[in-house]
């Protein structure tokens, strides 16, 4: 069975892991005037529970 010949250095490990990056989610302000919080687009607002002027979630 093939096995690594050398221990992987911390520098190599860290430089590989430096490519793991989180991306910021796309958000848009809630069109509900009373709310206006940032929310994911095309989704019911998690804060006020409205979508397209319609109450979808009970908050």
């Amino acid at each position, binding site marked *: 069975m093939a096995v690594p010949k050398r221990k992987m250095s911390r520098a190599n490990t860290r430089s590989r892991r430096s490519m793991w990056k989180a991306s910021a989610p796309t958000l848009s302000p809630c069109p509900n*005037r*009373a709310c206006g919080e940032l929310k994911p687009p095309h989704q*019911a607002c998690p804060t006020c529970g409205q979508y397209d*002027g*319609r109450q979808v979630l009970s908050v």
Partner: protein
Amino acid sequence: MPTPTKGPRLGGSPAHERLMLANLATSLFEHGRITTTETKAKRLRPLAEKLVTFAKRGDLHARRQVMTTIRDKDVVHTLFAEIGPRYENRPGGYTRITKVGPRKGDNAPMAVIELVEALTVGQQAVGEAERARGTQFASGAGASAASGEVTADAVETAEDTVAEDTVAEDVAADDVAEEAAAEDVEAPAADADADAEGTDAR
């Protein structure tokens, strides 16, 4: 005809998928609105709408065909007695899917699928007028597009351009405002204004 589903079956086997969809449809007609995963909601929509079409026909043959999917006689009775007649004037588009964030636990994207309301007299008139004029809104989901059901239609008819949607919303802005005023007991005027301006701004 709805587009045939691609990819793996829900639950692993065709039989499991049929059972899951039948149970989802039964729950939808029993409660009017259910929260489920986005994928299941999207698969349920064509089945549920086909069943509503059977219910609109209303004869014994249609009832027996529905019974092959929904095994609960009480639910089939509600479907034929209440839900079918409610959509007498609506040319399709009986369900609405609204996405509601991911679920805790497995982060699955969730959605609410619900039966839409009956057409109001105003919406019906607009639909008929559009059909008479022979505009782009007239064919297919014409009446529903004119009645502010842009959420459902936007998902369904991806080929609709943004321009068309904005026009439809402008036409429907008044209707939406009225509905909101009727529904929201707390702050009817403020909400209606917000809705109208929100739709205009988009």
